Each structure stands twice: as C-alpha cells, then as structure tokens.
C-alpha cells in the first residue's frame, strides 16, 4: 500500500523533500513509516527522527496521521491504511 510521508523545516532538508511516497506492507504502523523515513535520511540524520537507543520516535516530535495527533489515536502503534498521510513536525512556536 501507498503512504504519503511529509515533514517540514530542517527535517525536510534531511529527507531531501517535504513529501515522499512510500510503499509499505499491509498492517504497517505509524512507527514503520517513521523508520522508513529515517532510512531515507541516512545514518547521520537518523537521530533527528529516532532515538538511537531504541529507534523509537524522538519525544519532542509532533506526529499526525491524516491531520490528527497520534496521541489521540493509538500512538506510534496506530495501523496505517492505503492512502494515509503521516506528517512529522519538529517543535515549533510563535505566530
């Protein structure tokens, strides 16, 4: 299935784009999407997304699935569906 993975600011620079299309097996979770994004970023950049010790998402990142914060869903264990969109936003403020 196809998932759109998106991010912004310095994470987009590391990813090389603000948006990538990913092919993932059925039953994949938000965590799997992040791991794939980290793979695309290369070893140096992985810590921007995942904690080196357990390859779980860095706690300060905001992760949304189809616009909703995953905290109100099942967290990184939330299963994604074909056509879903995952957005990762670094800490931000102001405005």
């Amino acid at each position, binding site marked *: 299935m196809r998932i759109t993975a*998106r*991010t*912004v*600011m*310095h994470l*987009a*620079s590391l990813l090389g784009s*603000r948006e990538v299309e990913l092919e993932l097996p059925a039953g994949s979770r938000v965590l799997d999407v992040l791991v794939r994004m980290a793979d695309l970023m290369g070893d140096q950049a992985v810590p921007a997304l995942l904690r080196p010790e357990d390859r779980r998402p860095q706690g*300060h990142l*905001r992760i*949304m699935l189809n*616009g*909703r*914060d995953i*905290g*109100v869903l099942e967290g990184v264990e939330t299963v994604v569906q074909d056509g879903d*969109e995952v*957005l990762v*936003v*670094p*800490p*931000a*403020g*102001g*405005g």
Partner: protein
Amino acid sequence: MLQGGYTGKILRVDLSRKEAHTEELSPEFAKGYIGGAGFGIKTLYDEVPAGADPLGPDNKLIFASGPLSGSDTPCASRMAVTSKSPLTGAVGMATTGGFFPAELKFAGYDALIVEGTAASPMYVTINDGDVQFRDAAGLWGTHTSDCQQMIKDSLKDQGYRIACIGPAGENLSRLACIINERRAAGRKGLGAVMGSKNLKAIAVRGHGEIAVADPDAYKTARSSFREHMRESPVLYSAFAKIGTPMVVDVLGAMGMLAAKNWQATGEFVPVDELGTEAGKAVTVGRNPCQGCPVACSQLKLARNAPYTGIMAEGPEFESLYSLGTQCGVDNMDAIIAADRLCDELGLDTMSAGVTIGFAMELSERGALSAIDSGDLDISFGNDRAMMALLEKMAYRDGIGDLLADGVKEAAERIGGDAAYYAMHVKGLELPAYDVRGAKAHGLNYATSYTGADHNRGYAFQEIFGIPIPKEVDRFALEGKGELCKWNQDMRTATCDCPTMCAFLLDMAVPAVAAENAAALLTSLTGVSFTAEEVFQVGERVNNLARAFNAREGFSRKDDTLPDRLMNEPLLVGGSKGHHIPQEDLDLMLDDYYTARGWDVATGTPTRAKLEELGLASVADDLGV
C-alpha cells in the same frame, strides 16, 4: 504593600486642559488585576461610559505596563494599550513590546491614562516627573520612523522611547495602529483613537530602577524561569534563529494557511517562497525587545527591484499571510516592502492586508466595477496594486477611503453580497490560521473580547501539538469550550497582565505558566499570589471585558464566524473536508458559556460568576 515591580504610580494626562497628575496604585488593585491588560480593561470599564464614541472625547487610551516590565525578568518589556475600539465598538486591547514599556516604568509609572482631545496636533513628553505638552504641527504628516527621529533630535536626547501614529492614524483609518520603535500595538484601530485626540506621539524617558521585594526568592524564581527557557526544545534552537515565520511551514503542512481571502487555503501554499528557508535568505540582523535574550525579531532586506534596499523589522508570520498569501502574493521582497510601508504609515499589517485581499476577490467577481479604482488592477498576486492600496488607505484617497475602515464597513458600503466575502468577527479581520482545521482556535476567534484575535486565546494544543493541559484532536468539537476558556484565561493571566511576551507561554512554560508567574510576581512585588489566584485574574479580566462588551450590546449573536468558514469545507490540503457549520459552532458555544458560568442563551456573565470573581457591582450594572 507594593514593595517592588510596581512603581505604584499612574500618570493621568488630560489633553483638553493640558494637565497631568499622578495617582496611587493600590495593593488591592494589584492583587485583583495584576497590571497590563487587567489595568487597561478595569479602567476602560470604570471610566468610558456605554455608547461613547470611540473617536470622541469620552474615549480614553490607556498604556499599561505590567509589574514584570522593566525588571530583569527576561522578555517582560511589554504593555497593553486599551481603548474602546473604533473598528469593533468592543474592547480594543493590543500588546506591544520593544523598549517603550520598560521605559515607562523607568520614568516612574505603571500606566498612563490619556483623556480628552487636544485642540491642535500635540505630542506629550514624559521625562521622569516632568510632563510637557508640545506642539506637533511640524510632525503632523510624518512617517513613524521620521516622527520618532525628529522628536529625539528636537529633545536633544536619543534615549527617548516613542509611541506614535503615522498618516493612517491622523486620517482616522480604523485600521491604524500605534507604532513604538518598529513595533506595533496593532489591530482594533487604536491609532485612530490617538489621531482623534490630535495626539501624534508620546515620548518617554526614565532614569529610575525597579525595586525587588524579596531578592533571594526573586533570584530563585528568575533562575527557574530561565531554566525552563533553556530546556525548551524550540526557543533557542529554532525560534531564536527563525522567528515566527516558521509557522508558515507548519500551517502550510497542516492545510491551515489561509490564502486568497480564504478561498485557496491548502491550494496556494508558497512555503518555498515565504517559509523558513526563504526567510533566512533575506534576514540581515535581529532586533530584540528590551531585556530579551531570545531576539526572535528579525530585520529583513529586499534585494530585488522594484523593492531593492527596503528593510523591515519583520515581516512576522501574520504579515506573511496578510500581505502575502491572503493577497495571493508570494514575492518576499514585496512583502518586506509592504510591511515597512505599513509601519511607516502606521497601518495594521493584518487588517490592511485582509482588507486588500477582500477587495481583490470582489474585484475579480466584478463587484467593484461601480467603484473608481483608477487604473489599478486589483487582482490576486498583484503586489504593486497592494502597495498602492496601502498608501491610498492611509490617506483615504479614492478607493482607499472605502477600504480604510476595514472589511465590515467596506462590505456595508458596497452592499449586495459583499458581506459574504468579508472575513472578520465583530469587525476585526481574521488572522492567518484557517480555523476550519482547528476548532478551539476558531471558537476563540468567535468569542475573544476583541473580535477575531489569535492572541487572546491561542490554541497551541491544536497549532503546535503541545499536550497541555491535555492532548487534543484539532478537528474534534468535544471539550473545546473548556479548552478555549483555559487558553483565554491563561494567556491573559500570565502574559497580558504581568506583562510577559506570549511566545514564552507555549515555548518555555506551558505546563507551569501560572506557577511561574505567581513565583515571579510574589517575589518581585511583595503582593502574594498563588498560581490559582494568578489564573483567576485571567478569568476576572475576561469577564470584565465581556461585561464591557455586553454593556455595548454584544451578546451570543455576535460570537460567530464568517459565512465562508461555516458553509465551505476546505477542498484540499491537510485539513481537507473540514469546516465549522453553525450547528458545530453552537455546540462549542454552549460548552464554552457553560465552562465560563455564563448564560447559555445570551452569552452574558451571570451574577453568580461575577460575584465569585468579586464583581458584584458589575452584575448590578448589567442587571443580571
């Protein structure tokens, strides 16, 4: 007793009589309202009678710094400017930073109340205890930066800090703001109030210091605050370098960056042109407020014709919307130039830009054909037309006269279905956040005492995902009434009253904002505050502001959103499919009034709530 923080003195200036005197600030008042917006709104409620003409002699203009302002607490040089708004007829309160707020304290005053009307253009100088009324004939007509420089030169003291109006305020544009240095007490037409009083500027110079009640406890409180700032995952690492423009990237990705008069949100998303990276490329320096180690405020330079060489402090995020996406403009240099032009003319960037975007849509729909717009092509993306319109609005020239008082007034004058395209609440033009994708933020637009004002109850839970007081689903309706109240009261209590830069609330102390304010206030002033008491000041001030508005005839019917947001779901982007239909708004309003302890049918504060807040006499006034 007031032992520190406060100067304990209010300066009252009567322009009609050219008289000034000082009054004492009481500890009871400090405890009940803290300062800043609390002082401004309490004074407005007590002294400006119902039905007063906002541009008449009965209206007052109140400049109030908080007790923290001028102290060495970081990011506290802010003040609230309060008046009855000529744009909305409701409470007009705007905060500004820079150096003026602290300087007012150094001169010995917590607040300055301006009343009456000068017979001819005047400016007022305050040098510690010496107050002078001076002829401003030679300043009338000047741009704001020239005005400030001319005053400093004529007083032979470059240390004066000056708040002034530009041509927009002189010409009573209800979109006029008050400029100090290159900062603005923006929105709500406060510059027009100053213009109506024939007051071009206030120049202040102070040599005093702010006393500290309990130095040891204050040092501890201040260190703890600085520690929270250092621990922030964003304040120094990103915000200090990028500033507010980072929100272009965030809102763009969330499908919430409003564009082309709210027709093209999610579709016209010029992040490459106006976002973080584009901003870095044009930044040439920084200009922090007094006592601020963050220095988010940036100087940006246009380097391409026809704007080459024009510099602005900004554009901040909101101006990248109002003078950018709202007008279909993705030329950064043009926005820098327009931002600078607004500052010089003393025109609010947000309301002015939203009004021009409104005119652009009407023009494209053919609804302006009967109006003489000269040879201007008023269409989306035409930055030259935008620049020309800003000038025309400030001078009320031709079509500029139609647009100079904002979208609500312009729509009434144009007639037909123009009101449908007028993006405002209570007359105040909408900020950048397309709230079809953030419901508590939208509820705040509908209920804020100033009209559609993102700053009075910013839903950082929805915009930045900060899970305090809890994690929320930005699209959900449930719980948004309570959340909106919390945001409004917390912002008022910990930022608008003490006074403190609001960026610190969400980026440094979101989990402990009231505790942080209580510790700083208690140790600095000697008036003891618990966190609960601080928070309750926020509730008290919001209730008093609501009571002022109720006395002016505002009620539930005015807590609404533009038709477009209620009728048209977003078509593309990260918030696709969402809107706020009337029934959804009603549901949130019911929750909100219930959370506030207000009458659900009318949206008016109840006697029980007012008595709980020590406002029994207000209940008598309202007859509730």
